[in-house]
């Protein structure tokens, strides 16, 4: 990307672009953190002001947009929106609950593993939207408190999401910016995820699992569920699973196919829309396509659109390079120190604020460190640190990740509210435990 073509042309009132960009950036992030105004509105407003004040022109702003992130998210959201109508996710959840004889601890274990696997292959928010309602139904039937189940599902979704390129927005952004392939994530990040999940479940067992109990009668209620009945549309099921399999194979072979993940995901979305609409009337097609697009989380997408412009603005005026230099001064330009510092800072930040803006900012910062470490190819340990820190850090508090808030919202509606402080008292230490594991992993895998 040529930075010269983005040059500042018409700064209004002759203001210093560094100050304007920096102020806009800090103000926008501050307002996002207050959560008083919807984050999509704030980011979009901040991004547009970056253009209107003359820090960037429209063309330059567009170069800041990462189509790979936007396209991949949108494509996967459309595919999942259509797939879930088939009832397949309910099927898997009920099937797994019955496999363990409807024992509460077994169900918690199964649903957590299912959550982690789904989160690795779909986005976390979608996963919990699908799993949590079934969990609430099952816990109500079992007459057990849903909190340990929901708590573990939150943790599992963020842990599972860390495993793959498509699992969590930070990974999508990192994969696109570096660029790393789907397989790079599988080879470098996925191996540590099962251990982190296992340790988390061990703690949950000590706190709740060993004391869990449900009556035989309540368990029988679950065993009487007929999960096959939840498949409401067998044809749709086949079509969706076919497209999902195609898309995931596409990610795995993306390098050989010379394709970017966004292309594959959007192709998958278009293909599934085609398969499900082809024999319908044009009126019914318009309705169905509209409904499928409406399920895309546009708040997230427009949040990204604004954020990319904001970050490109501060990057363009050279602020992020200064930040990178400050980090390097602090770590003495040592790769191990830098990587581990990024891991811990990412984790703490992501627990307290949204990890998406944090990662969006850190990407250009880390990129500009390449010369110090002898080229972009030597930055890999820092990228994996950023990914693990940002994804796992989301477990530190109820506001650490969007999925956490979705679960809390459902729990509240179901009459079992999850409170901020009690959640954090348990989740934050468990998040730190996962970061200790990640530290050891990154050190021995990439730094010695």
């Amino acid at each position, binding site marked *: 990307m040529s930075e010269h073509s983005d040059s500042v042309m018409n700064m209004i009132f002759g203001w210093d672009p560094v100050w304007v960009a920096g102020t806009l950036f800090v103000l926008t992030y501050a307002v996002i953190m207050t959560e008083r105004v919807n984050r999509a509105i704030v980011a979009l407003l901040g991004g547009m002001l970056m253009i209107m004040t003359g820090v960037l022109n429209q063309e330059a702003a567009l170069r800041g947009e990462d189509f790979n992130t936007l396209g991949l998210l949108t494509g996967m959201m459309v595919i999942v929106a259509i797939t879930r109508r088939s009832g397949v996710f309910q099927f898997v959840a009920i099937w797994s609950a019955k496999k363990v004889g409807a024992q509460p601890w077994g169900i918690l274990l199964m649903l957590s593993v299912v959550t982690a696997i789904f989160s690795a292959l779909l986005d976390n928010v979608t996963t919990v939207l699908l799993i949590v309602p079934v969990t*609430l139904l099952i816990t109500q039937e079992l007459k057990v408190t849903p909190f340990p189940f929901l708590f573990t599902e939150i943790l599992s979704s963020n842990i599972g999401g860390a495993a793959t390129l498509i699992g969590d927005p930070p990974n999508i952004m990192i994969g696109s910016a570096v660029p790393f392939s789907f397989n790079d994530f599988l080879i470098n990040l996925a191996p540590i995820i099962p251990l982190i999940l296992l340790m988390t479940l061990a703690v949950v067992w000590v706190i709740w699992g060993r004391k869990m109990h449900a009556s035989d009668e309540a368990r029988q209620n679950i065993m009487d*569920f007929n999960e096959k009945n939840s498949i409401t549309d067998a044809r749709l099921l086949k079509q969706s699973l076919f497209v999902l399999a195609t898309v995931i194979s596409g990610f795995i072979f993306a390098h050989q196919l010379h394709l970017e993940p966004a292309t594959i995901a959007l192709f998958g979305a278009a293909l599934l829309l085609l398969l499900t609409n082809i024999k319908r009337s044009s009126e019914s097609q318009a309705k169905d396509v509209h409904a499928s697009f409406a399920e895309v989380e546009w708040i997230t997408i427009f949040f990204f659109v604004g954020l990319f412009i904001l970050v490109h603005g501060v990057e363009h005026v050279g602020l992020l390079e200064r930040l990178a230099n400050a980090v390097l001064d602090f770590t003495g330009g040592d790769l191990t120190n830098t990587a581990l510092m990024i891991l811990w800072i990412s984790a703490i930040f992501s627990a307290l604020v949204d990890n998406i803006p944090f990662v969006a900012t850190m990407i250009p910062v880390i990129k500009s460190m390449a010369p110090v470490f002898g080229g972009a190819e030597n930055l890999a340990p820092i990228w994996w640190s950023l990914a693990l820190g940002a994804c796992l850090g989301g477990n530190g508090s109820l506001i650490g990740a969007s999925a956490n808030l979705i679960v809390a919202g*459902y729990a509240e509606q179901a009459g079992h509210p999850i409170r901020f402080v009690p959640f954090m008292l348990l989740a934050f230490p468990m998040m730190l435990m996962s970061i200790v594991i990640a530290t050891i992993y990154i050190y021995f895998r990439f730094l010695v």
Partner: protein
Amino acid sequence: MSAEQFMSRDPVTAHADERVRNALVKMCDKHIHNLPVMDSDGKFIGLFGLRNLLHALLPKAATISPALKSLVFLADNLEEVIESLQEVADQPVKNYLDRDHLILCRTDEPIMEVIRKLHEAPTSLPVVLLESDGAHLVGMISYWDILAHISAQLGDADPRLKSACMTSDSEGSEASE
């Protein structure tokens, strides 16, 4: 012709703290679907209807999430439903008011607007006087009230329809006789 002219006056009501059991007895006795619910000051605070009862009988998860659209996979378990009904029956009606879907009608609204609102509302329409200290219930309008009122104006054009509709139940009103 405004709402005031075809509403049923003096509807049967329930108190906010009244048990659901008691409210259901009134509803079954009078064959009415919805009871206006009043607080201790006699202010109208919402409707308790058979739809609210059905909502309360469902598992919580099914009422909060679009992801659980179908419950066809559940075992056919009547005891569970009976158990839920007994639990709900001991609760005060105020726990089951559906404020999100409540549509109110003012006394001076024209008939076409009343028909539109009834078409939109899943329940009968409470007719209220909105004052600074809250809503005062003055009557209820059900589908039947509308039909009875229109058919009363039919004259001799359709005597069978006229007499059939005019003698039908008028929901929410003791004055239906």
